[in-house]
């Protein structure tokens, strides 16, 4: 068994129905079986969608660990964020209304379990060596999104990607994001 690393990113953005529908469509259309090239193209499309809407992102987090145990454990954790539907609402919050003061939010999460020592993984390691003061800057998130568009999936063992919500009327509220379970999301500066 070869050692693994993990690269993960979560973006929390103002719910823009057009962007949400676009990302939803991209995810829905991903086939059950895919090759590395199809994966590359899919993530590239997702990255482009977010890169062009970076201004909507208000919170987020990203990780890169090249510690095998941490990588596999974290990948399970990120996966459970989807399988347990932990971050999703259990009831609608109402459609986002531009004339209503209370905004709605969406989150986009992607986590990749990478083959440690591969060129892609080492390139990511270099790109993720970001100085502490810049960790949560918008430009850094932009660079991390760019990373998603440049992965060689020949060196990816597993990936999980999900979007909250799946329907505009189920967007996250300010109160939802204030919950302890979202405290890992940093304010984008």
């Amino acid at each position, binding site marked *: 068994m070869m050692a693994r690393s993990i690269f993960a990113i979560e973006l929390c953005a103002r719910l823009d129905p057009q962007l949400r529908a676009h990302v939803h469509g991209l995810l829905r259309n991903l086939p059950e079986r895919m090759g590395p090239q199809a994966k590359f193209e899919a993530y590239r499309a997702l990255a482009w969608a977010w890169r062009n809407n970076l201004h909507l992102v208000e919170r987020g987090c990203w990780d890169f660990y090249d510690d095998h145990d941490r990588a596999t454990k974290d990948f399970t954790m990120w996966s459970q964020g989807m399988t347990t*539907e932990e971050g999703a609402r259990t009831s609608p919050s109402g459609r986002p209304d531009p004339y209503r003061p209370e905004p709605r939010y969406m989150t986009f999460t992607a986590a990749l379990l990478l083959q440690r020592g591969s060129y892609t993984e080492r390139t990511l390691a270099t790109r993720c060596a970001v100085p502490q003061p810049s960790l949560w800057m918008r430009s850094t998130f932009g660079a991390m999104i760019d990373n998603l568009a440049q992965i060689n999936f*020949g060196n990816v063992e597993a990936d999980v990607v999900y979007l909250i919500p799946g329907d505009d009327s189920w967007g996250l509220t300010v109160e939802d994001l204030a919950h302890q379970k979202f405290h890992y999301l940093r304010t984008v500066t």
Partner: protein
Amino acid sequence: MEFDTFRRDEFLEKPGIVGARWWQHSLTAIQADEPTRRSSLGVILGIAALATVGIGIGLASSSDDDDEAIQDVAKTSIEMQKAYGWAFGAAGEPLVFDGVTEKPFSRDTLAKLWSDLAPSREDLAPYSVRTLLQAPTSAPTLKTAGDPAPFVPLEQVLKPMHNTATDAAFSVGQSLASLLKDVRDVAVVVDLEGPSSVALAAGMADDFDVVFLLDNWPHPRGVVTSHEALAVAAYYQPLFDVARKSRVGRKPPPSPVFVLDSRRLADYVDATDRFDNRWVARLPSATALKKLGLKHVLYVTDLTREVDDLNDDFVAYENESIDVRYVRPDAFGKRPLSSKAEGVDVIMCYGGDAGSHEYFFVHYPYRAPRGTPFEPTRVKPVVARYNYRVSPRASNFSSGSKSPPASKPQPAGFAVSKVVFGKSSGTLLGWTKSRTGTWNRAGGSWGG
């Protein structure tokens, strides 16, 4: 051709969440038992033998021994494209454009894309690279024996494009030009992703002589998606043309902006089914820059350091007292409507405010700042990279020497494509990874 190696094991589509997870269980096995070139060839040989028998395309193979049927040979990718067409081995596969077109577009103008985007200064012409800009109207001179797909000229499938990223880059270019237009000894090297590089250069084109260095052709499965840079060039073609004409004969002559695509050495392994259309940058030498009267190089990048193939060039520049400084495009920001300063009329400003725009010259002392600009709070060294200095670094594309050699290193197998020849006939059958070649397609169960 690739195997669908990822299998989805989770899928959710509910009002609260939508997502999926995939595993590539074969990864460990593949890595542990990397197929040798010999075994890979064996697969191809088997398929080719089926093609010979089942489809009867006329391979001059009279032998039962598959090894005698075909052989694969590494050829320079660009040479294969020039001879057999830009979409060599993947004819009919679509190009994907990440942007929109909002203006009428005449495909006829693509024929003069190269001349419209050429530098106006005669002494800069030898350094411009026309490879990419000439691709739209190129036609193949040969045809592969095993690939039945008809050739479609690139100009027929190219679409002009722009998007929010290129629009922003264009504004940064305008901003940078507003600062540097009166400084005559600075050469700008733009090294962003292709579309943004082209757009940024377009923003500078009124005041700078644009020198394109894009040295590859697009391909439907290209490692470098250079069709996007070409599409942005087509979008800005009318602007480039007008700007170029306005620069001809200008005194003093405009300084150059060299245009690169930072993805030219993109991550790639031969195990994928992608076409290796990567390339290495060819900047003028230090001597040439000096002869052009240039004393400074400003490198526009969103990377943490220069792309490997520029390291030797930049070290050589520094050795010849041509200083190389770095600036990130996000050191420029959209200024608030309320922010005003004399002489500043651009949308994007250094530091994101009209009042900090001239502070650029505190960080980059090419001339004295005008007025009393304030220090931008958001432009720190780590953001702008203004205090980064190049140092020798060994890589696949740089020597690491303090006195770099004239020719840059380049790894074996870079920018080449494996093609298949009929051994007996000597005829080129196609790209080993082609999905359309009859010699390849016969093995229906082999590819994805």
